Structure formats: structure tokens, C-alpha cells
């Protein structure tokens, strides 16, 4: 095309494009007008609807058939348990049970509350307890977290409002399980529909009832106006709660920033702090039951035989400045000196060896162990990577070159069980159970996750698990914890904090069990 032709073309086209711009700009105006007119309805104070976003969807709403945190939160708001654990004092109070007593080391007897109704109108009585617990503890029914139910041998009805729960072995932690994870279903309904029907149309007796559930997408709760007065949980104050499953963290943050949602949790510290500056948001943090520790593989055939020398393990323990990492990277949480959650029954750090940050001592111990020039070792991790990296830096400073292997939890556990790990950056949440039997024995009780396999420690933990007398039990557990710390089988690090971002209109208090208690919340 010649230059003049191009020019002619150009000038002509200007005319046409101007003509074509007309309808386009009209369309643009119309579109923006439409968008302005139809601003989506937000969950908020004005609608008396609390909007919460969470990243994972439960596979089944029935509390026995999911193992995600949001499932536990929904369960606590929609269902009741026999016993209630006060989140502040850790004291046990009667919920669906009025009182209980220990008949013998394996038997607990419960007097049940009368006049409680489930959301579908069905009455609560001994049958509800007997059917629910016998059903879920039968392995054939495949409850997701077997550890919660497999201790139950059977549940017997004594009369309409009295039941006995018999455990397979003496099981001192029973009350805690009955206070946290063992929700009670309406017997007639559950017998008829089973877990599948319970998922399709969930029915509990709690302060909130489920009015809509779209699997993988959202759950909507409504205040239970007939909630029984004597419950240690109060009746709900906010009319509706809508929980939406949004996998992307940034999207969740955008939702609270734009006012689309009122509450999100598990926000990383640095991002939560940025949201503090927004006038309509509040940032709250709380401690959790999840503990973090550095596990050292001393098993026969370990890929790092150096770790079998106690001086090397102590050198590693003294090399890491736990306080500095806690303050600067973890933020919130607390230092722990034994491998258990401090609130757990049986957990204590009395007499435990505390490894202070002392790089000079660390180097000296390494030299004594025959590594004056340091050594190389692998370290595996699956979450909280910045924390692992900080530890690697501290180890480097005393001459220990730690090579990071970062992977999925399942893959890491696979390696640990196959005796292929050296150092592992572990975290453990105890499945909410506030009893030491749910934490320390998992990693030191001789099971497949135990990489030290010390027969003395194993014997002590087994004894503690089956001792009913609380004083004796605590003493035995303490001996095990002190021994683990003396032998430096693992370095206890800290408990993890959780950050929540909420609308300022919301009265909300975080607890260490990471349970979001909708029934306690109200609008300011």
C-alpha cells in the first residue's frame, strides 16, 4: 500500500470508527449503570447475617465423617456433646448430660438432661446417645477419625435418661473426647438416613441449625430459637451465619476488605498486620493447640547416625534461638519446653531440661562429638517454611549445614515411617483433644511415627495412658516428658498462633482450641 493510500484509508477510517464508537460508548454507559444498580447483597450487620469465608470444604457435614477444622467449627455450633469443656478454665460442665460419675476404671455413667429437642423436633434421650455412639464406634461404619471413637466398647441404656459408656481399656481421656468430638445425633432420624442423609439434611440440637448446604460451596446456619436454656453454650444472638468456601487466600482477604465477608481465619501474620490499617476491620490473634517441634531420628539405620550421639542432638538444640524466631517470625504463640500442648491434661514442663540459645556451647559440643568442622544433615518440613528456614540459618552459624526438603505432609510422613528422615520440622494439633494421650505418645509411644523408639519412654507413656488416678497419671507422664527432654530426642519449639480478621461491627473472641463460637458473637 502506498503512503497516500494508507493516509486515505486512515482518514476515512477515522470517520467510520467515530461512527462506530457511538453504540459502543452507549453500551459502556449502560453496563456501568447496570453494575451500579445491581450491587450484590452483602452479608453484614444490616442483614443480621454473618459472612465467613474458609478455604477448605468438608467432605461431609456429619461431624463423624470429616476431619477439617471448619467441620469441627460447624459441629460445635450445630450439635451438642454430652459434656462441655470451658475454653477459658478447661473445666468440664454438663451439656446434654446433667452429671456423670466413674463407676469403675472402664465405665462412666451419665444422667441426661430432659426436655431437649433436636432441630427436627425429635426428643433427646438415652436412645440418642446409645444409637449415635454405638453406630460411630463400629469400625464397619468407617468414621473418618477412628482415634476419636475406637476407645468405646459399647454404650448401654440404663433408663430413659441414664446411660453407661464402657471403654475397651481404662481410658482417662474419655471425658475430653465426650466434650469435644462426640456429637449426639437424633436416634430415629440417624437410624433412618445414616451419614449420607445426615449430610444431605443435617439435624443437631445446637444453638444454630443448618438451613442450606451446598456441598463444596456454602453452608448457611440460622439461630435455633428453641435452644435449651441450661446449656453452658448460650443461645445464638446473630440471626444467620453463611460460611462460604473460598480456596484462595487473596480472594478471602479481598472479600473482607470489600465488605463481602465479615470473618476469615488462618491469615498469615504479615498479611493480617497489613489489614489492621483498614478502618472497618479488626485483627485478632489467639494461641492454638498446635505445637511445633524439631524431631531427630535416632532409630537403628537412621540416615544421620550422628544424631545417635546425644552431644550432637544437644548441639542442635543449643544452636537455635527459639525466642528470636518466636518473636520475629511466628508472632504470637508461646514457647514450649516439652512435646505436648501446655493446656493438655498431663502436660507439664516441671524438671524438663531447657535448651538455651548458646552457639558457643553448641560448637563445643560438636567438637567433642568429633565434628569440629561441623556436619551436613537433611531437614524435612511441610508447613511454616519461614520457620524452617530460620532454623537452618541458626544451624549454619554453628557449622551444621542443613539441606531443606519441603514436601506434602503425606510424603514427609511416608519418609519418616520408612526411616529415611534425619531432622523433621513437625507440627501436631492433637485433633483438639485436651489430653496428653493425644500428643506425646503419637511421636514417642513406639508407634510408626516414633523415630527415637526409647523403650523406657514408651513404657512410661503406655503406663500414663492407662492410669486412672489423675495425680499418679500426671507424675508418670512427667517422667516421660523429662526423659525425652534430657535425652534431647526432639527440640520443643512453640505453639502456633492463629490470626483472624473480622469486621469491626462484630464482637468476637478467639480461643486456643480454634473453635469459632458463633453463639457467643453479636453485632456491636
Amino acid at each position, binding site marked *: *500500500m502506498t503512503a497516500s493510500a*494508507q493516509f486515505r*484509508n*486512515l482518514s*476515512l*477510517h477515522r*470517520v*467510520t*470508527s467515530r*461512527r*462506530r464508537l457511538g453504540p459502543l460508548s452507549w453500551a459502556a454507559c449502560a453496563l*456501568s449503570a447496570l*453494575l*451500579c444498580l*445491581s*450491587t*450484590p447483597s452483602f452479608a453484614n450487620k444490616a442483614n443480621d447475617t454473618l459472612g465467613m469465608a474458609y478455604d*477448605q*470444604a468438608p*467432605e*461431609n457435614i456429619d461431624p463423624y465423617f470429616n*476431619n477439617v477444622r471448619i467441620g469441627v467449627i460447624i459441629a460445635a455450633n450445630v450439635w451438642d456433646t454430652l459434656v462441655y469443656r470451658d475454653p477459658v478454665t478447661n473445666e468440664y460442665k454438663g451439656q446434654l448430660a446433667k452429671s456423670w460419675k466413674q463407676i469403675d476404671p472402664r465405665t462412666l455413667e451419665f444422667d441426661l438432661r430432659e426436655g431437649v429437642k433436636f432441630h427436627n423436633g425429635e426428643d433427646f434421650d438415652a436412645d440418642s446417645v446409645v444409637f449415635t455412639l454405638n453406630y460411630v464406634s463400629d469400625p464397619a461404619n468407617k468414621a473418618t*477419625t*477412628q*482415634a476419636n471413637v475406637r476407645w468405646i466398647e459399647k454404650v448401654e441404656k440404663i433408663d430413659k435418661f441414664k446411660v453407661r459408656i464402657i471403654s475397651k481399656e481404662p481410658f482417662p481421656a474419655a471425658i475430653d473426647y465426650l466434650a469435644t468430638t462426640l456429637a449426639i445425633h437424633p436416634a430415629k432420624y440417624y437410624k433412618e438416613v445414616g451419614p*449420607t442423609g445426615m449430610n444431605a439434611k443435617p439435624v443437631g440440637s445446637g444453638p444454630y441449625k443448618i438451613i442450606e448446604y*451446598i*456441598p*463444596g*460451596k456454602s453452608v448457611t446456619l440460622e439461630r435455633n430459637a428453641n435452644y435449651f436454656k441450661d446449656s453452658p453454650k448460650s443461645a445464638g444472638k446473630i440471626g444467620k451465619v453463611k460460611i*462460604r*468456601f*473460598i*480456596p*484462595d487466600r*487473596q*480472594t478471602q482477604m*479481598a*472479600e473482607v*476488605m*470489600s*465488605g*463481602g465477608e465479615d470473618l476469615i481465619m488462618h491469615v498469615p501474620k504479615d498479611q493480617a498486620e497489613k489489614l489492621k490499617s483498614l478502618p472497618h476491620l479488626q485483627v485478632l490473634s489467639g494461641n492454638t493447640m498446635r505445637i511445633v517441634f524439631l524431631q531427630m531420628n535416632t532409630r537403628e539405620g537412621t540416615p544421620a547416625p550422628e544424631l545417635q550421639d546425644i552431644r550432637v542432638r544437644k548441639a542442635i538444640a543449643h544452636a537455635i534461638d527459639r525466642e528470636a524466631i518466636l518473636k520475629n517470625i511466628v508472632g504470637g504463640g508461646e514457647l514450649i519446653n516439652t512435646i505436648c500442648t501446655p493446656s493438655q491434661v498431663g502436660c507439664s514442663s516441671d524438671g524438663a531440661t531447657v535448651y538455651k540459645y548458646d552457639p558457643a556451647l553448641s560448637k563445643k559440643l560438636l567438637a567433642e562429638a568429633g565434628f569440629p568442622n561441623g556436619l551436613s544433615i537433611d531437614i524435612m518440613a511441610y508447613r511454616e517454611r519461614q520457620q524452617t528456614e530460620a532454623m537452618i540459618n541458626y544451624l549454619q552459624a554453628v557449622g551444621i549445614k542443613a539441606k531443606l526438603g519441603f*514436601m*506434602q*505432609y*503425606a*510424603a514427609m*510422613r*511416608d519418609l519418616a*515411617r520408612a526411616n529415611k528422615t534425619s531432622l523433621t520440622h513437625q507440627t501436631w*494439633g492433637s*485433633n483438639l483433644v485436651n489430653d496428653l494421650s493425644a500428643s506425646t505418645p*503419637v511421636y514417642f509411644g513406639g*508407634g*510408626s511415627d516414633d523415630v527415637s523408639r526409647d523403650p523406657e519412654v514408651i513404657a512410661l507413656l503406655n503406663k500414663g495412658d492407662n492410669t486412672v488416678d489423675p495425680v499418679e497419671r500426671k507424675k508418670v507422664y512427667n517422667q516421660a516428658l523429662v526423659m525425652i527432654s534430657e535425652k534431647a530426642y526432639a527440640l520443643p519449639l512453640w505453639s502456633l498462633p492463629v490470626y483472624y480478621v473480622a469486621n469491626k461491627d462484630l464482637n468476637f473472641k478467639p480461643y486456643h482450641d480454634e473453635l469459632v463460637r458463633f453463639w457467643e458473637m453479636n453485632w456491636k
Partner: protein
Amino acid sequence: MIAYLVKRLGLAVLVALTVSVIAYLLLYLSGDPALAIAGEGARQADIDLIRKTYGFDRPLIVQYGDWLLKLLRGDLGVSMYFKTDVAPLIFSKLSTTLLLALYALTVALVISVPLGVLAAIYKNSWIDRLCLAVAVVGQSMPNFFFALILIMLFSISWRLLPVSGSGTWQHFVMPAITLGYYAAPAFMRLIRAGMIEVLSADYIRTARAKGLPTHTVIFKHALRNAIVPVVALAAVQLGFLLGGSIVIETIFALDGLGYLAYQSITFKDYPVTQIIVLLLSVIYIFLTLASDIANAWLDPRIRVA
């Protein structure tokens, strides 16, 4: 033409089979699947039971063959996470994803056709450079980043659109723009090249000489011819948009196939992940085949190649 068809079809089937092998092997990518299913807190006995129940203890080739045979019989398996049949689960999500892909394709064409035409008419001018810049940005900017910019502007600053969800048509605006903009540059460059070629053709000069108005020449005579390869590309791009929606649906929490894929990967729900990978690949293979055939039908020179 028949020989060409048979050859392309044979190739497509081979590619699909290869993809099915890869899809099946996904199961073993992140370690022992039995351990992954058992999760935190499971005992060795539970894990062994899972291994046996799911048949992970059989030789790999037997497991794959069994899986493929069941697929061919229409048995897509059961989701390990949602505990329902995979087929209805996937088909219930397909409409959202298809809708998103079609919206995105529309956005892509609405952006690319005018810009491609403009770039061709003002070849090598600043307008052409500007269009090139728009194309480069669209092609090179990661779409999750573009999505966040849109969210910041439309949802947080101006509060015009909802951030996430799939309840109303407004929920589709930002995802469609994000996905469509990413797909636009390919169309834009194709239209530009096609238009430049066509505009210098004799019949255009004839049309101009007849005194036809410029817009008639451009839109009726030139664009119609230049747009033919775009139709073929659109088929391929549609397949790409269906697959590309995994990230976008996850960001905008759109309840479609991509979101399901993300969930099934997160929860190690292998039966669902495998079928989604296979389904998206087969759709892509089918659309590519369709576009090849369309091209061959439009342009006989391709058939001999």
C-alpha cells in the same frame, strides 16, 4: 480427505491413550496414595487396610488396565472425598465452566477483532504498536495477578462487583475478562496478519475502486476473509480456556470444574483428579481435531501435508 481424516483420528486416539496413562500415574506423584488418603493420625493397620481396599497392592499395569476398562464401560469411579459417583459430580460442575469459557471467548473476540483490524489498518504506526503492547501485556501477565488487579479495582476500590462466588451474572464479569484477555492476543495477531494480507489483495483494490465506503470494504470484504482461520483457532482456544479455568475458578471461588479440580488435588481425591485431567485433555484433543478438519476442509493444501 479420508486418508487425512483417518490419520488425524488415529493420532488423536494415541494422544488420548498417552494422556490416560499420565492421568493414572498422577496417583503416585506425591508418595504412597494409601498414606495420603489415611491422613494425619492414622495407624499402620488403617493404612494397610486402605491399600488393600483400593487395590494399591496390585501391579501398576493391572491397576491401570482395570481403571481404563471401567472407564470404557462408563464407570468413572467414586470420589474419595465427596463419597459420590464421579460422573454426576463432574457433570454438575461442567455447565459453570462451559459458561465461563464461552463468556471468556466472547471477551477475547470483542477485544481482539477490533484491535486486530485497527493494527492491520494502521500497520507500523503508533496504533499498531499500542495494540502490540496490549497483546504482549495480555499474553505475558500471569492471569492470577491480573485477576487480583481487577478485584482491587472493581471490588475493593469501587465496590461494583462481588469478589467471588457464582450466584449471579456479575460474578462472571471479572473471571471472563481475566480469562478472555489472556486468550485475546493469539486472535489479535492472527487477525492482524490476515487483514494485512487481505487488504493488499486485488479484490480489495477493486472494491475501493468501485467507490464502496471504507467500512464496507474493511468489514464486509476484508474481515470476512481474514476471520476464517480465527474460527479454527477459536475451537482450540476454547479447549485452552476450559483447562485454564482451574486457576481462575479457584481465585474467584466459581463453583465449576476448575474449582473441583483444585479441591480434588488438595484433598488427594485421585479418582476425580484423574477424570478431570482426562476429560479436559480429551475435550482439547477433540477440539484440536475439529479445528484440523475444519482447516483441511477450508484449505485443500493442508490435506496433502
